């Protein structure tokens, strides 16, 4: 090794530079707390960290979405629960009516109460949360239920919302249907054979009818043939001689069809036809209210008989609401579990990121001390080498 000044200088400079660079790196790690501060610090780990950062952001977004959905579902559940309670009270009243507790005047009062409930249920079905209608399916910007009134009373409630719910991603590759379709959760969808409750002799035809809920069948006789109508006599279908086992009778107001077996018709009159499995909560209450107001001029016995039949209809929509409540609850439960899983995954992701990126402070301290010693030693050696000169002895 040469003892030239340049050589000494270069060696010292090189050593100091190496140690200084290493110390700067350690200082950066200590100040940021991170071992990987740029991709070149560890390219493969940097790749993983960037991916994990994206994953963490994604998980946080999903959590936010799930949290919002849980909020929506909880509000929905509360609303459905309120509706169920309202229906339960109506069930109680209906039982009392059927038991003969109320006279005509009392029934009219109950009809008013049912009307109030109907108003409340429509209002609940049109509930908004955070500016979005909860029961309009994908159409969250328009009130899902529109009412038509006559003399201030609701005579028809029609669904205006979307027939599909909104699909929202709640995790990678997992979506959930949210914003329930009111027409599905407030409406029974298990059509059964129509039940004819009168004494005309008409019965259900073999075809699948399209009418829903309660239909009033009118049977009259035109002097030659029986005629049947389901639009309160607006239009009639003539029963052929000997009857027809599957006569299609259309409601001119709605276009809906009731298939009637007319072969057994022996009498004229108006009778109630129930189509189980097709009731919706609003039409049921409207029908019940109108029955109790006895707008058709039925006798007391008929009112009570039909009221008795309405129990089954109310029970049906009550069960529909219960199912909706259970379904909403289970969806909420699923989302809460998912939220917990997402939270766990987020923690795991953070842990992994930390493991990859975070600096080991203890190790930094030790390394820094070692480098400090080396640095000082380099300076000391350089000083000694520079200091010793033959010139001092000449």
């Amino acid at each position: 090794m040469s003892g030239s000044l340049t050589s000494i200088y270069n060696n010292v400079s090189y050593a100091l530079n190496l140690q200084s660079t290493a110390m700067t790196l350690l200082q950066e790690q200590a100040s940021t707390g991170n071992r990987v501060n740029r991709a070149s610090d560890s390219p493969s780990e940097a790749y993983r960290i960037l991916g994990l950062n994206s994953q963490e952001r994604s998980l946080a977004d999903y959590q936010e979405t799930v949290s919002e959905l849980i909020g929506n579902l909880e509000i929905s559940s509360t609303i459905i629960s309120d509706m169920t309670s309202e229906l339960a009270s109506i069930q109680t009243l209906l039982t009392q009516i059927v038991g003969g507790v109320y006279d005509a005047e009392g029934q009219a009062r109950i009809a008013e109460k049912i009307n109030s409930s109907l108003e409340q249920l429509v209002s609940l079905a049109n509930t908004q949360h955070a500016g979005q209608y909860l029961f309009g399916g994908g159409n969250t910007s328009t009130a899902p239920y529109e009412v038509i009134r006559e003399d201030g009373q609701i005579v028809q409630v029609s669904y205006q919302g979307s027939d599909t719910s909104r699909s929202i991603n709640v995790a990678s590759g997992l979506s959930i249907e949210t914003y329930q379709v009111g027409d599905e959760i407030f409406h029974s969808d298990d059509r059964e054979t129509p039940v004819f409750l009168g004494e005309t002799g008409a019965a259900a035809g073999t075809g699948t009818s399209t009418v829903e809920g309660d239909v009033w069948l009118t049977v009259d006789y035109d002097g030659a043939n029986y005629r049947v109508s389901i639009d309160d006599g607006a239009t009639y279908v003539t029963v052929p001689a000997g009857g027809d086992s599957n006569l299609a009778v259309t409601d001119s107001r709605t276009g809906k069809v009731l298939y009637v077996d007319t072969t057994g018709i022996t009498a004229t009159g108006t009778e109630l036809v129930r189509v189980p499995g097709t009731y919706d909560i609003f039409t049921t209450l409207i029908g019940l209210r109108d029955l109790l107001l006895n707008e058709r001029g039925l006798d007391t016995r008929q009112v009570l008989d039909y009221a008795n039949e309405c129990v089954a209809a109310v029970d049906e929509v009550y069960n529909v609401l219960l199912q909706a409540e259970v379904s909403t609850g289970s969806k909420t439960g699923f989302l809460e579990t998912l939220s917990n899983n997402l939270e766990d995954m987020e923690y795991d992701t953070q842990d992994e990121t930390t493991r990859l990126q975070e600096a080991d402070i203890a190790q930094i301290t030790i390394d820094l001390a070692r480098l400090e010693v080396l640095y000082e030693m380099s300076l000391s050696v350089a000083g000694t080498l520079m200091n010793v000169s033959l010139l001092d002895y000449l």
Partner: protein
Amino acid sequence: MSDYSIGLTGLNAASTALEVIGNNIANASTDGYHRQRVELSPSAYGGDGTAVVGAGVDVSGVTRLVDKLLEAEIMSQESSYAQITQELSVMTTVETTFGEFSEDGGLNATIDEFFSALEALAGHPLESVYRSDVVSAAEVMCSEFQRLGNSVEDLRGQIVLEAQNMGDSINSLITQTAELNGKIQNIEVGGGQANNLRDQRDQLISDLAQFVNVDTQERDYGVVDVSIAGLPAVTGTVTLGIHVGLNNDGTLGISAEGNQGRSLSIEGGELGGLLLLNNELLDEVANDLDTLAKAIVDTVNQYQVQGLGTEGSFTELTGWGVGDGTLSSLGTDVTDGSFHVRVTNAETGEVERYEIEVDASGSPPDTVESIAAKIDAITGLSASVVSSQLHIVAEQEYAFDFLPAVSPEPTSTSFTAASPAAVSVSGVYNGDENDTFTFMVEGTGSVGNGTLRLSVTDGDGNLVSTLTIGEGYAAGDALDLGNGIKIEVSTGQFNDADSFEVDVFAFTDTSGFLMAAGMNTFFSGAGASEMQVCGEIADSPDRIATAYGSDLTDNTAALRLAGVQDEEVDSLGGMTANEYYQRLVADVGQEVSLLESRQQNIEAILQNLANQRDETSGIDVNDEAAELMVYERMFQAMAKYLSTLQETIDTLVNIV
């Protein structure tokens, strides 16, 4: 009087040696200086009778202590070191520019945030605040792309300027080297020694090697020829400079001055580093960024083009510039195919769908103008190319769009019954490819009665589903095909083998024309530095496509747009946008890490080589001081010798 002569040669030798030592010490810190040593040799003859005692000492020369092989190796390593340092400096700047791992995040975070905003919009497609969020996030992402794209471009611009300046410096060094060659030759031809000039010349060559790797060839009289990548830059006193400029393909090229057509393959040195940076390393980074930007632009636009926001169908739409109007000049590939335009008559509510064929490979192929003419032929629409932009306008009572929503009525029917049932179709097809479903009636009778059924087959004749429309089906109820499409059959009759067809769409534009022409696109720009949110979207976020369904309440388009983040894109080598970018960042980091490692290795090698050189050529002051003492003593002794000799002669003279 040879005795005097011996003394004088000794004095002269000692004096010369002292001068050399002085020169060595004076240049102890001079870059490129090589230690010199006086070469002494006994004087040829000094006879006195039969005893040969010599004639004193000759100064046979002053030589530079140079290990030429070592010097060549150092020069080569320094050249490599300069190249790597140059590359490292720029690539570190690129890495820093990416800004990942900083508090503010980088492009990775902005890509995440854009798609996160789209995901939020998918949850709230009808709320304007979420649309504004998407626009904001998109603009931030675009500005980040632009920043990175422009930074890389700026770096390349600086590199070109720096390379050109470096070319001037190299030419200057070449000239100076040749001049020194001349001076050295003049001195040494005359028998002199031009050690200091050689050092100066060698230092110039060393400086030259910092810029570019050089080969040297030493000739007589100290002349050194220098060649750069085979170019004889210095031949004695003759020079041939280099020219640095941009090639036609935008790459940086080096050629001989006056012969700019011939490109030199430069390696090593800072200039070699600049060439590699500009032509390969930064080019790759710029290309990767552009590829990523274009992939996001194209993939997002692909879903945006056919969707609608809450603003609804269009009454007027203007695309972006279409160049010379040929399909091949459009920024995005247009292939043979077609696109479908839905035209709605607002007064009657009628919706008609028109298919526009696009012939991209015909002879002659379609042009933007010819396609505009086809659109113009649609009832209710007029289309033309105005100011190189495709412009479609709907007549007053009409509106148009490119929605993939299924038409409410079957595309075609073949009913033979007297009072056939009406069929209505709804929904958004969730398949991957456009298709035509054929519904074939099985049985004869009224809907809702008997065993009437519909068998549904796809375009390839595969059975998709069998639907009961006989007993058990209430006319008007929706029948779900399980692929997003629903049909409703009214009351009425069907005869056996009656049929109807329904066209379903995954993409209403299979040619890519709409996207290429900039119709209802989200982003514009073919590369990172050009990427931006289209003005119509920025001005009216309600134009962001959220729905593919005709009632515009669904979130299908928003979900598809948000799903782009997880989409594996062919142009990105089957990676997602995030993965591709993360790989790019890691690749740059890998390059920097590799360069750092190589720089450290070469630095260590250079340090060792420098130490080796110092052992030969370095100035050790103590060594020189020791030599100083030797020659001082020699001078004193020779003076004493002459003095003694003089005294001897004086004694003799006194005797006489």
